[in-house]
């Protein structure tokens, strides 16, 4: 719920606390999309069908475009250098959903990244769609339009693997259960202070708990229909994790409870370190 009273044309119109809160949130979204783009790109070769390979290529292009747009906002309104965000940060500074930290071992993992992780980020973006921070509001309509196809793809493959055989259904469940745990961690604890401030200013329109409930409902209902065990249970018409997150060590900047970070070799490839000599200034 928002108590929005003002429209913010630039981050300079926000309070100092909310400038930092907004910056941290945008970086977390951009980091997740950057890592999603990397993994989709990696899976441009190797999926079970050529159509899925082409889809991964397209999903990668889409996510990297969104990163470019978000980095532009961070550059203009939060004085962040996009090159620094990609190339000059320590791994522990990345605030992506942890599921993307390491290589995705099999197609079930990629489907979990697509259906659970990608959908979760999109759900969070919906909570910013009518943001009082106008530059963000004016950017999200197109981004969300494009994301509709991502979830269709993820949901289609979730269904395909769930129905193929017991092995694929089990692998899918294991991957999605881990992805859901990591998504819950990234959304953060209820009533977290940075989020409360963003909600009060109208920068966000929906709290993380409510957005996470919508993610759980989407995945939980699909899993229930197709008998995939994804680590969710239903109680009083609401889906929740079987294993609840312990929040005492949650860090609002990295959006993690654990000491974890993207693998160095992923960052090495993602940053194009081996092509340093070819970089354009």
């Amino acid at each position: 719920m928002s108590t929005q009273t003002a429209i913010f044309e630039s981050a300079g119109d926000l309070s100092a606390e909310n400038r930092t809160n907004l910056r941290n949130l945008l970086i977390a979204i951009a980091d997740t999309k950057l890592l999603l783009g990397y993994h989709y790109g990696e899976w441009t070769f190797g999926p079970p069908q050529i159509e899925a390979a082409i889809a991964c290529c397209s999903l990668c292009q889409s996510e990297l475009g969104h990163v470019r747009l978000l980095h532009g906002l961070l550059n203009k309104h939060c004085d962040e250098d996009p090159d620094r965000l990609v190339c000059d940060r320590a791994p522990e500074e990345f605030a992506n959903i942890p599921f993307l930290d390491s290589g995705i071992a099999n197609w079930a993992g990629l489907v979990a990244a697509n259906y659970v992780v990608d959908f979760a980020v999109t759900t969070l973006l919906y909570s910013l769609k009518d943001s009082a921070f106008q530059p963000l509001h004016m950017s999200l309509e197109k981004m969300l339009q494009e994301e509709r196809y991502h979830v269709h793809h993820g949901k289609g493959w979730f269904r395909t693997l769930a129905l193929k055989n017991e092995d694929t259904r089990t692998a899918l469940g294991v991957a999605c259960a881990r992805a859901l745990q990591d998504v819950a961690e990234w959304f953060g604890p209820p009533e977290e202070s940075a989020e409360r401030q963003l909600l009060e200013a109208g920068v966000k329109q929906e709290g993380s708990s409510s957005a996470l409930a919508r993610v759980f409902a989407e995945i939980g209902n699909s899993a229930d229909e197709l008998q995939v065990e994804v680590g969710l249970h239903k109680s009083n018409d609401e889906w929740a994790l079987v294993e609840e997150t312990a929040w005492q060590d949650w860090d609002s900047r990295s959006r993690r409870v654990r000491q974890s970070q993207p693998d160095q070799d992923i960052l090495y490839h993602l940053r194009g370190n081996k092509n340093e000599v070819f970089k354009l200034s």
Partner: protein
Amino acid sequence: MVTTDQVWDALARVNDPEYPLSVVDLGMVYGVGVNHKDIQIEMTFTAIGCPAIDMIIADVRDEVGKIPEVQGVNVDVVWSPAWTKACITDKGRQILQYYGVGL
């Protein structure tokens, strides 16, 4: 004195790199402003991840910059309202259908 018609005519000569139709017929140009010798163009793209954004902007600047007396061309990229197929002009639809693109 530069006119908006001259600017629209110049933009109609800037083609999309993938299909043989202009950014105007694709419905990517949302507005044109003329302030003496400085031109302001508001445009969008069909996809946020379009790899040709910089190239198309360069083509726009180049083509509009050829209009006599024009000194500056500023291109403002916007994402709202979001581009959809509904933005394509009737002429653009005919061209795409001629080349077998379903709409």
